[in-house]
């Protein structure tokens, strides 16, 4: 077979092409196929109870960080507690979404104050808030406290300020709240059990 000049070039081109392909690292090795890394491997586990309904499901909360001094704990995952006799690790759609409750963009981060007639919130310190609220409560109580009724019976009640307590707060909070509310003589006092 006679190889012409042009044919020679053609063969060379193919050879160069082939070797450069090899140089590019063609025929790659088997691409890695691994499962996603297990995200809880070194997370800290804390037990809690679901804050929603009264089934009282046990929760496992996983947070980043090992509680070392310089690590700021961040909850990264919440799932059911398999040891819990009622939920046995299961959760409902609300419980399943608790992570986004903890991290809701609508979580409040600082005390705020709205002045009469104002259209907006202004930040306020805790101390300012407590001082102002206590002042308003005391003024109202001192003015409207009913020590005796029209029959002269001792009644010691304060009904011009009321309170609604949170039935999702703990017993400890509830107990303290009740103790405080009654010591003030409050009667206009309910919790969600009413509705």
């Amino acid at each position: 077979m006679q190889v012409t000049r042009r044919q020679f070039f053609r063969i060379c081109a193919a050879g160069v092409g082939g070797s450069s392909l090899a140089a590019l690292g063609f025929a790659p090795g088997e691409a890695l196929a691994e499962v996603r890394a297990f995200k809880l491997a070194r997370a800290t586990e804390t037990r809690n109870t679901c804050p929603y309904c009264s089934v009282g499901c046990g929760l496992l909360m996983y947070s980043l960080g090992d509680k070392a001094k310089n690590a700021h704990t961040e909850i990264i995952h919440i799932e059911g507690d398999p040891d819990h006799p009622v939920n046995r690790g299961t959760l409902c759609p609300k419980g399943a979404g608790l992570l986004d409750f903890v991290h809701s963009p609508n979580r409040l981060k600082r005390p705020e104050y709205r002045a009469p007639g104002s259209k907006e919130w202004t930040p306020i310190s805790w101390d300012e808030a407590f001082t102002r609220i206590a002042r308003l409560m005391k003024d109202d109580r001192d003015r409207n406290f009913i020590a005796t009724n029209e029959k002269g019976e001792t009644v010691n009640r304060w009904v011009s300020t009321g309170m609604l307590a949170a039935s999702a707060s703990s017993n400890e909070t509830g107990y303290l709240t009740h103790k405080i509310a009654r010591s003030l003589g409050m009667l206009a006092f309910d919790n969600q059990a009413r509705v």
Partner: protein
Amino acid sequence: MTNHWVDIKNTDLVLIMGGNAAEAHPCGFKWVTEAKAHRKARLIVVDPRFTRSAAVSDFYTPIRAGSDIAFLGGVIHYLLSHDRIHHEYVKHYTDMSFLVKDDFGFEDGIFSGYNPEKRSYDKSSWGYQIGADGYVVTDPTLQHPRCVYQMMKAHYSRYTPDMVSSICGTPKEDFLKVCAMIAETSASNKTMTIMYALGWTQHSQGSQMIRTGAMVQLLLGNIGVAGGGMNALRGHSNIQGLTDLGLLSNLLPGYMTLPGDAEQDYAAYIAKRAFKPLRPGQLSYWSNYGKFHVSTMKAWYGDAATAENNWAYDWLPKLDKGYDILQVFENMNQGKVNGYVCQGFNPLSSAPCKVKVSGSLAKLKFLVTIDPLATETSEFWQNHGEYNDVDPAKIQTEVFRLPSTCFAEEDGSLVSSSRVLQWHWKAAEPPGDARSDQEIMAGIFLKLRELYQKEGGAFPDPILNLTWKYKQPHFPSPEELAKEFSGKALKDVTDPKDPAKVLVKAGEQLNGFAELRDDGSTACGCWIFSGAWTEKGNLMARRDNSDPFGIGQTLNWAFAWPANRRVLYNRASCDPSGKPYDPSRKLIAWDAATGKWGGSDIPDFKPDSAPEDGMSPFIMNPEGVARFFAVDKMAEGPFPEHYEPLESPLAVNLLHPKNDKARANPAARVFKGDWETFGKADKFPYVCTTYRLTEHFHFWTKHVRLNAIVQPEQFVEIGEELAKDKGIKAGDHVRVKSNRGFIVAVAVVTKRVRTLDVGGRKVHTVGVPIHWGFTGVAKNGYITNTLTPFVGDANTQTPEFKSFLVDLEKV
């Protein structure tokens, strides 16, 4: 719940009525599926809508919202007329044989003693006949015409299947099928559980609906047994706890009650509540009321509560009337309330008749909200377009919004619906400057106390003397508070049988309420929680889930009140001789050898009272037995009677067509001015019922992205027939309006909402889920309670959210 979540697996039949357990309590509903899978249990769902509970039921039948007493009354009639009751149980453990006072009567829908002007009853005739010995007169043969059995039989004879069907709209054959299934459980080795929730409570006659359900269960002998009971599926994680702790206008901790104005005498106050037994040999556990009361006052006021000052009796506020949330908003609306504190409560969304609530809040001088989330209530003054169209400039209320921690950021205990107190642990710091509720309450209180110390003021004694021995006064720790409500000995507590024997040393935690004393030697913030934190440590944090008897009792898991009992009234699971009715589900039994009751549960009974002593199982009742006849405990009568909702599509009560007084609940409290806000069927022809969806939790999860994703936008559900009449297709926007306002939402047109035949006319139902509002990450929507009427149950004042009238149109 009389029983508990896991115990549902022991049942043979589940009746879900007045609730929607699969959607509202999915993880508790699991135990229904377990009962179905492992005991071949059947599930009946009776509901105005074909719910997701109905989707997995064995039998579903519809009912018109608000007609449950008629349905259950019909079941009672069926059981009595077919004699399908648990005879031995009913005879020994209920008041069937008790004779009722002769002047008690019932005529055309109204019980004796009614005062139409006051809309209330003089209940003096509602009682048992008391003999010369001070005990109730009985007729064990049940033949006496005034015995409860005969009275009840007569009362419910009117609730025939035809009557039930025409009031409820339930097809008669469906109703009879439900009756037949329920009647099967009158056998002593069969049981039924009833699971209900706000579908029963949120009616103007809600308490009586629940009572009727309880009566059915008593007739069948299903109370106190494993797999039975009346199981209220409570809404919030600690709504049980807050009720137990008495955070309601008229309560003290542990279901003790505040005195009324007239109760000026301490001894009389206690005597009225420390019931004496009404039958021989009965325990009447409330006779210990004084011990509970004094211990609470010692916990609150410490050394300042003395025998001399009647344990600070006068420091308790006295009630001239109830101050439930409806009454308070009524007062607020009248300008009688100046300040309001909403701790984790969002009344603008959750109280009825938004326009009234919003207007009332605007009359406050100051409002304090304490919440982890930005609630609608905290922004009631802000204009949010069509969803909250107010003018901030006209609202002069000062508002404080205080950020609190959420569950993940605090330690503490919650009481589940099973009455189990469970401890939880903090996992992370709160965002920003948020503080725990305890810190916030302490912050406000300590400032107030400081002011009273400095300036004096109105009756400062209880404020200045409130016990506050917390190690960090500004942050009472959950551990300290838990120990305080569980109780401790202030002096050595000795055995009453042997005064030399010291049961608890001074300063030690108490083991339980049996150790409480009324001499000031014990302090216990909440007697029913007593024993939650003993010298052994925090029992609420116990995590041993072993179930040695295999019926799900797990006695070493956390701590249940009372005294770690898991099934209430469990003595009733045994026959009078102390043998379990169904040995395969044994809770307790009498062991003659040891002379004690014992088994898989803590006996809810005097542990050493032998069967032959004749003590009956219902030890909290002075009768010792369960009451079919409610005596004077209910506002509208000793026997539940069907009344129409305040707003009803029917002009008359079909049971009493001629008596307008007996149309709606004659004892329901309606404020002046609210009558006009009620709509009539001519303008508002459709029955509306509001409810929760499984994807959301009240008004919280619209702030939660994951939940907003799976149920993003407000909608209403209507049946195909109504949709066709109105030319509405699924996905159209509709306006639902009541006489109090309107909402606009997407229409879900479904076969699951059926048109009912009620008293010969068609009644359409409109279903409105509650979860939307003008704050949150889900699509904004109208507050559903814009529509609801400002009226509550006659006993509890729980608003009538479940049945009222609306009109509907395509937008």
